[in-house]
């Protein structure tokens, strides 16, 4: 039982990573906590789930289409709303919160109140038996995909020109502008990328969590806690934070189901007291 619980924890950690990596990048670069991030996760799940269930689109194609749709949605928010409020962080936060409420109501209107359950792709259904333990194949696949995406993101940030520009923007946006980087275009790119990751994560998570009204505001605090834990703008921070929270949440659900949400509080308290910038965040100047 412990093995399966550990696998579930890592899987959930992988989903959290897809959610929080984008959140952390957006926050690191734009200084805006994107409160629509949970909504993007849910929207991805709904769009992907509908494509699979109603239109019989293959799972992975549906996941990519959902990611693209959510990315476009993110782009619209960034271009037409956040950009007009540039410089006023509070206004930007409140606008993302307002949009999150609109999306949650809109989804309820379109997809109704019943949970939308999505089947895992047939090739990955069932389990694999190894070393006398039963491994659900789909969950293993989710872990591998999250690791692959983490590696790609890391390579993108660390090895490419775009990554270097993003890092420059995170470190010092004014100076990055001075040396000729179009920081506002980076904002759009990063926002769309973060939205796409969240939407993709929503589809990946659908066979495990199913998609239901309220998923958005259930996931959003998890992303916040991961980023508070790992440090804003830090990819390793998101990864470690996601896995820690994945373990605490899943073990909490089994061991103290009534307080599962509450014990997420503990690592956050520890980190805030001992290291307020987060495990991998840099100290404030």
């Amino acid at each position: 039982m412990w093995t399966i619980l550990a696998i579930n924890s890592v899987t959930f950690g992988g989903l959290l990573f897809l959610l929080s990596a984008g959140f952390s990048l957006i926050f690191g670069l734009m200084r805006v906590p994107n409160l629509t991030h949970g909504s993007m996760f849910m929207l991805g799940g709904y769009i992907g789930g509908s494509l699979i269930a109603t239109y019989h689109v293959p799972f992975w194609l549906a996941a990519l289409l959902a990611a693209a749709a959510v990315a476009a949605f993110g782009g619209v928010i960034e271009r037409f709303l956040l950009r007009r409020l540039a410089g006023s962080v509070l206004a930007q936060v409140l606008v993302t919160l307002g949009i999150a409420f609109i999306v949650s109501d809109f989804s309820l209107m379109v997809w109704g109140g019943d949970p939308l359950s999505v089947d895992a792709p047939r090739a990955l259904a069932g389990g694999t038996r190894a070393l006398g333990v039963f491994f659900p194949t789909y969950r293993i696949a989710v872990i591998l995909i999250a690791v692959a995406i983490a590696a790609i993101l890391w390579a993108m940030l660390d090895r490419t020109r775009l990554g270097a520009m993003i890092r420059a923007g995170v470190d010092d946006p004014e100076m990055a502008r001075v040396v000729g980087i179009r920081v506002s275009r980076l904002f759009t790119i990063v926002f769309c990328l973060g939205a796409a990751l969240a939407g993709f994560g929503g589809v990946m998570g659908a066979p495990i969590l199913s998609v239901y009204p309220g998923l958005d505001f259930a996931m959003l605090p998890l992303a916040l806690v991961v980023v508070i834990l790992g440090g804003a703008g830090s990819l390793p921070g998101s990864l470690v934070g996601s896995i820690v929270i994945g373990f605490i949440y899943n073990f909490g659900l089994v061991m103290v189901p009534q307080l599962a949400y509450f014990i997420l509080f503990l690592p956050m308290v520890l980190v805030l007291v001992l290291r307020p910038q987060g495990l991998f965040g840099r100290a404030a100047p």
Partner: protein
Amino acid sequence: MIARRALIGLAAVLLAAVPLWVPGNYDISVCSEILIYAIFALSVDLLIGFAGLVSLGHAGLFSLAGYTLAVCLGAGFGQPAAIALALAVTLAGTAVFAALSLRTTGVGFIMITLALGQIMWGLAYRWVGLTGGDNGISVASRPAPFGISLAVPSHFYEATLIVFAFAVFAYRVFIDSPFGASLRGTRDQPRRMSALGYNVWMIRFSAFMVSGLLAAIAGILFVFRAEFISPPTAALTASAEPVLMAISGGSGTILGPIVGAALVEIVKNIASAYITRWNMLLGATFVVIVMFMPEGLVPGTMRLMRRGFGPRPPAPAAAAAERKTPP
């Protein structure tokens, strides 16, 4: 000044006479609700408008008071004991909220309060043994001070109005005091305040405690009015509503959050007759207010009345958030 006093007196008379000129028990009950939410909005705006700290987790404190009251009453405590316990527990909870969220300011503060508020929601929803989970807790009785039964809507309204008047008066004294001035100082120039020898952290912490006390009072009144509490009271929307009230009415003023609370509650009650879902309207109002009327209704109207055509000063909350805070 005299005109101002006369206006306040007129408003007091009108408010006190609500049971006479407002028809029907339902509408009187809505007026009680407006007063309760006005206290809650003032609580949130003490932090937004005067300390430059935006909390998105205040429903956690509001519902902590409400749940403590409901649980204590359910366990057979008397009304005074239950109210005292609700206040004490909420102040303790506020101290934890403040100690954690004041590790940062600006956006970090928003994120931590949001996470803490959601954790309170998680407790309300999941800790079924204590909170009844989704079913919530019903509270059978309202208190009867001096033998006057508050089960009558107009009596309950007058009692709420008395609490409200005390709260507004104390709020006024508080923000006009030297402490209030130092609080505004920490909002505008935290570094200078620190250099002048003020303990910025302690000032913010104290303001948070006062804010928590107001939220607790509102939460207690809320449970007595509704005679019921359930997890949506602690949800993120419930934290966002007082923020919207404060910002739409005019943050950093006393009248602003009160007007905002009245507007939001009236719109909510009218809208609920036509649409079943309030969230979309709430979200859209948020977007519209922030995009087009960032300074709020009350300062905007006062500016028009003063016929000031000078450059528009930024809203205190927006200005506070604009100051760069280390992430």
